[in-house]
């Protein structure tokens, strides 16, 4: 019993450990970068890794903490990315300071993703069952199609938007004034974006995300959400409003996905909506599941390793996805192996997982 008690209080240590690990990793990578150890390719991966870490943390809130499946999380990322690009490109002249412009873009991206999350949650979170998975899956595809027929430009008069549903319109139809420029060109996606995302910004956003998610879990609202996941009927009988608390968790989750999207979108000069397809959603889900449901540090590590791995294996060209698949299978086998689990539990002083076989 005393051992179990120690484990329970170990959660607090794990809580701070996550911040320490992220900060240490950031410092290490920064020094390596300055020392010239990282090659160009690795440098290019830094911001996307940050984005996928935020995505994994955000999806872990939905899947691990709330216990609902979201199969279209890339859709919210996409919304954030294109909102961020439009806002940032429109403000190039008005707000020359890149850091301030990035903050404003993140704010707008987050709000749009939050609104989308709220609108989706409104009907779906009332239902019991896997409906959230179905609806978010559809949402991801719909958003992709909508952005594919979106043509946006900006000139001295402001932002011009046309929907190119029939496919007969082009940038010329925007009737931009002199000095205006196209921001999103339909299926070609965003072009000519000024890249203002930095590794430092990515690090700050990861820390903010961690702060929000970890504090959320350990607050009154977070307890209500976990209670609903553990036992919906009991939670209702304790007076916990299921719809309300699921909604809060889901909106926070989509907001953070929007933030990740803005960072991602502003890291590349060009980006298409197809980038945020079903595969991306599943990729993030793989990070979450392999990192451990509800385990934030696990999500961060899984996102880092599993995102860099296929890129690092690029020299093996044809075999890289094969190796990736083998690694996935090995991780799954390892994390489900009782002997290995027991061994890890012995080694890890910050163990927070309870021993299995709860009386139910």
């Amino acid at each position, binding site marked *: 019993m005393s051992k179990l008690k120690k484990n329970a209080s170990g959660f607090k240590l794990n809580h701070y450990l996550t911040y320490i690990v992220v900060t240490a990793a950031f410092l290490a990578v920064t020094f390596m970068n300055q020392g010239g150890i990282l090659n160009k390719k690795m440098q290019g991966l830094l911001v996307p890794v940050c984005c996928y870490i935020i995505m994994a943390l955000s999806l872990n809130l939905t899947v691990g903490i709330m216990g609902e499946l979201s199969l279209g999380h890339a859709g919210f990322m996409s919304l954030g990315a294109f909102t961020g690009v439009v806002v940032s490109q429109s403000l190039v002249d008005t707000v020359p300071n890149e850091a301030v412009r990035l903050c404003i873009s993140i704010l707008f991206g987050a709000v749009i993703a939050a609104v989308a999350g709220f609108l989706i949650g409104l009907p779906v979170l009332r239902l019991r069952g896997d409906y959230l998975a179905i609806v978010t899956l559809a949402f991801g595809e719909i958003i992709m199609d909508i952005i594919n027929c979106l043509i946006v430009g900006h000139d001295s008069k402001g932002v011009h938007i046309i929907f190119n549903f029939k496919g007969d319109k082009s940038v010329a139809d925007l009737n931009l004034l002199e000095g205006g420029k196209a921001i999103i060109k339909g299926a070609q996606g965003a072009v000519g974006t000024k890249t203002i995302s930095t590794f430092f910004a990515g690090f700050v956003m990861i820390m903010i995300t961690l702060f929000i998610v970890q504090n959320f879990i350990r607050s009154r609202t977070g307890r*209500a959400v976990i209670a609903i996941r553990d036992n919906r009927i009991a939670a209702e009988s304790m*007076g916990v409003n299921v719809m309300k608390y699921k909604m809060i968790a889901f909106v926070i989750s989509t907001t953070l996905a929007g933030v990740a999207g803005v960072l991602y979108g502003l890291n590349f000069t060009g980006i298409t909506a197809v980038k945020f397809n079903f595969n991306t959603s599943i990729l993030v889900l793989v990070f979450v599941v392999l990192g451990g449901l509800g385990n934030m540090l696990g999500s961060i590590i899984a996102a880092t390793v599993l995102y860099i791995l296929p890129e690092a294996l690029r020299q093996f060209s044809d075999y890289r996805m094969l190796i990736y698949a083998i690694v996935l299978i090995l991780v799954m086998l390892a994390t489900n192996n009782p002997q290995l689990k027991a061994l890890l539990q012995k080694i890890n002083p910050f163990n927070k997982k309870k021993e299995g076989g709860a009386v*139910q």
Partner: protein
Amino acid sequence: MKKFEKGKMVPVPSMAIIPERDMDSPPVLECIHLGIEFGGLKAVDDFNFVIGKTEIAGLIGPNGAGKTTVFNLLTKVYNPTHGSIMLDGIDTTGKTTVQVCKMGIARTFQNIRLFSNMTVEENVRVGLHNQVKYSTLSGVLRLPPYWKQEKVFHDRAMELLSIFDMQDMAGLYAGNLPYGAQRRLEIVRALATNPKLLLLDEPAAGMNPNETAELMENIVKIRDTFGIAVLLIEHDMKLVMGICEGICVLNFGKIIAKGTAEEIQSNPEVIKAYLGNNSMEG
């Protein structure tokens, strides 16, 4: 606690089993012709029942008699197809489980439904959810209300756990507790919602005779300390006959007898329903 409104007072039916101390106060719970049908099967039929403000009432009956269904009707897990439920004189028709909980009905479950991935203290804190409040924003940003209210959460949770001497288990995961402790924790968690009526579904199931005796004392203690009514389903006749002031016997969804322990024990209908012979133990 909500004050009872005089105008909505419900006349106490003459058949009510109410101890003398509750004579002047209106009943906390009144079921009028309550019933539910599942596709033609009348699980509960014409259930008329009244509980006084500080009464300990028992609901007994053979397996499948509809006892837990009555609890599910009271807490709105099922919506009744007939009749109505008055809680403290207020009709609960159309209310949800959450609203009924806020009005003052708390329950435990026959098959324990704890939040097994949470600690004992966190379980009680979920019970206190509507008693102690702060906004999500102050929780996420760790603003002063968070620290102040979390301290209240902790103090109240510990106070409630002390009823069953469970303070030193506060940090354990609820799923790892022994069976008896899990049952006790469910009662504590239900009490945390500040109820007027506590529904206990087989609180002594799986407990040994010593634990059961202790539980009997504690149920009476809870009633006296909190001044609430208790309705319990139980198969342990020693417990039911020992502490219940009024007993209601259910068979095939219908009430076959109501009365005090002595009246029930000598009721031929009850004996027939249970065993067909003279013994009440079983």
